[in-house]
């Protein structure tokens, strides 16, 4: 196990260099000069020339890459071209918003999705099975943008149960230590703030959860149905266990492997940001950061963000792989 873990972590190094190189090349291949984009319609030739010099864009590409590589290895991701902020600071400020939202959305998606899937499988071909699976299909195909606006209109604007947008009311003072607002509120024992954070989380999390929820529910159902047809389950039933007992004690664990894989992949991709949800709910997450940075040709920021997202994705997948061994004793990493 230890050796396996070590090997997997070592594999991060080529991934790291690969991502650095690929992102560097792609950003440079994309047409559009950051100096021109930044200065917009108003650019004067002198301003463009001066900005290119300041940004080091007049160097040859290999020199730019080596400089970038050298700095990155030392943990310096550079400064954002647009805001002049250190890329690392920018990422540290924005990632927690995404992590909080991802976590909340996946909590809803996994909880509701697995429960729905299990009931649908246990009562295959019942009305519940039919309705839930058709609903899941809807959830999967619903445009997020439309759903988000509808939720806001109904639950925030019309009924007034939830705030419309943002992460926290400006009237509430909260010391931001981790930038995970819920954690910050708990650390400060500020229960009013914690409640306010949760209320802000509900609508965007529900919006973001619909697609993974649908996938998880359908995956749980089909995987569980497959397991329920296996011999050892028939044996368990023959021993006189109730259907509930069979599912809970024998079938579920084995059925979880593909479900965990799906959850892992979804967590990984949600950590890359959810641009539509973030835009509708004015959520200051990493998705908007990356998209804005790409449009602004903010090379250092794009590079830094993609690097961190890629590393997180690999780490989440590693966790998924490790969970296989826990779920299925036949899987051993040596």
């Amino acid at each position, binding site marked *: 196990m230890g050796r396996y873990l070590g090997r997997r972590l070592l594999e991060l190094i080529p991934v790291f260099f690969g991502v650095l190189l690929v992102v560097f090349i792609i950003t440079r291949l994309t*047409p*559009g*000069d*950051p100096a*021109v*984009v*930044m*200065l*917009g*319609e*108003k*650019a*004067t*030739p*002198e*301003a*463009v020339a*001066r*900005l290119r*010099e*300041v940004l080091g864009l007049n160097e040859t590409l290999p020199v730019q890459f080596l400089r970038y590589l050298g700095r990155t290895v030392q943990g310096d991701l550079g*400064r954002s*071209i*647009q*805001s*002049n*902020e250190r890329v690392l600071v*920018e990422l540290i*400020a*924005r990632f927690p918003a995404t992590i909080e939202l991802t976590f909340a959305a996946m909590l809803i998606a996994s909880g509701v999705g697995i429960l729905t899937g299990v009931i649908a499988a246990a009562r295959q071909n019942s009305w519940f099975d039919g309705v839930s699976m058709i609903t899941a299909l809807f959830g999967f195909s619903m445009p997020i943008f439309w759903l988000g*606006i509808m939720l*806001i*209109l109904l639950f*925030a*604007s019309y009924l*007034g149960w939830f*705030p*419309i*947008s*943002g*992460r926290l009311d*400006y009237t509430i003072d909260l010391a*931001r230590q981790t930038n995970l607002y819920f954690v910050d509120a708990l650390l400060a024992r500020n229960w009013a703030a914690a409640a306010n954070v949760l209320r802000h989380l509900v609508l965007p999390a529900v919006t973001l959860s619909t697609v993974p929820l649908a996938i998880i529910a359908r995956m749980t159902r089909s995987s569980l149905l497959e397991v329920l047809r296996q011999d050892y389950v028939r044996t368990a039933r023959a021993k006189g266990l109730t259907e509930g007992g069979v599912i809970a004690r024998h079938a579920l664990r084995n059925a979880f492997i593909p479900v965990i894989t799906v959850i892992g992949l979804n967590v990984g991709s949600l950590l890359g940001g959810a641009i539509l949800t973030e*835009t*509708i*709910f*004015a959520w*200051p997450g990493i998705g*908007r*950061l990356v998209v804005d940075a790409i*449009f*602004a*040709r903010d090379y250092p920021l794009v590079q830094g963000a993609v690097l961190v997202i890629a590393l997180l994705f690999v780490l989440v997948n590693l966790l998924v792989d490790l969970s296989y061994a826990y779920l299925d004793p036949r899987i051993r990493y040596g």
Partner: protein
Amino acid sequence: MRYRFRILVPVLLLTAALLIAPVNLQGAAMARTSWDAKACGATGGTLVFAQADDAVSLDPNDIEDGFSVNIDSNMFDTLVRFRADGTQVEPSLAESWSVSADGKTWTFKLRAGVKFHDGTPFNAEAVKFTYDRQINNKHPYFPGAAPYASFSYQNVTKVDAVDAQTVRFNLSAPFAPFLTNMAMFSTAIVSPTAVKKYGKDFFKNPVGTGPFRFVEWVKKDHVTMAANQDYWAGRPCVDRLIARAIPDNTVRLLEMERGTVHVIDQVNPPDYERIRKNKDLVLFTGPGLNTGYIALNVEKSPFNDVRIRRAVNYAVNKAALIRAFYAGVGAPAKNPIPPTIWSYNDAVPAYEYSVEKAKQLLAEAGYPNGFSTELWWPNRARPYLTQPPKIAEALQAQLAAAGIRARLVTFEWGTYLEKIRNAEHPMAIIGWIGDNGDPDNFLYVLLDKDNAEKGKANNYAFYKSEALHSLLIKAQQVGEQSQRAALYRQAQVIIHNDAPWVPLVHAARVAAYRKAVQNYFPHPLEIRWLHRVWLAR
């Protein structure tokens, strides 16, 4: 009688003293400025305004986007400032100024006793420091890009701090728009102490002399500012000012309907009616300081023929575009400058919408069956171009009716600008938002031959007219506004005749706010100065 005199004499003396004492003259001067005329009906409360995006930077010397300008302008002052109701300038940090006979030296007398939010006294050194850090990219406190420096300090060669209250700008050549440039956000005076203290992090620790001081910035979420109680022109009406970033237009409006936001920018045209019907809300529409146009590349055939360019002008139905895509609140354009700018020449006739005339001109030019070309459009909504793909399609259909078969071509914004700067387009939709309300900012920048060099051009028509050039240069050098206006009026006639553009529209400026918001006038420059705004209970 005697008794009466005993009172009258001191009263008269006191009155005389009040009239001649310099401190009171200053007071009188202050009361004359257009901003101070707007009194606070009540003080206190928190004013929240929401816009589509957050500031990029809180350093006014290092920004170019409107979102940053709206926020930074509430924390910083400039030497002179735009009047509350227009684009003429009046005193601000400078109480008075004079220009030398040759037009090359401008001397400003600075207001005494003004302090930055960190306590640093405001003086001529601070003005010089603000200039030096922007103009020299080797300066230890160069702000990163200073995107506007070469524009706003055009022709300035050196700034001298003559004494604490006197600063002198030396210009290489007389430049009439200089004074208006000194009212632009990019020349806002920063606290040298704070810049030196925070270095590269000044952009998130802004210190100015403005009506609000900086409190907190949660990126892409909000900026909080608090009233500067010691503001030299009197404290702002509200205690706190919060600028929120809410990207979605509908969501921003919903927040305002709920009362969690007081003032918003950028409303979807279909929502205008919804706001008008809401008794708690106000919809403001006024003429905008922008022009959307099609640049006809005069270097490319057949647009090198003036008859073809005029034919394109006749083929476009501007009124239909405005009805369909600007909710009817824009104005059709016939000149490059909008009617809100002085020197607008209303005597210039518009090319009326006439497919017949267009066809006739095409036939005269040797294209009786029309011709095929490309119409380029930018894939990014701008104030002057609300719905780019739809407007482009409508123009394509209008041109086709006259026999001009245009294929639509687009690129992502940054690439688009680069390509049209390189003259790769035959026809390109683009526009301009005024920076300082000076005609030079449109006519010279967008149509002079000086700005038609490939790769660097702002003159996307690549139109080079000697006659126009001599008028525009002369207008930069004469001091009198009436003389300048006459020159610019002539310039507009030349441009009309040569038709390097199809001027399309001057989009309206639109803002919406809650009824409780008092004293709010959405400024023609579309900058949100909010210090004289107060909240009715």
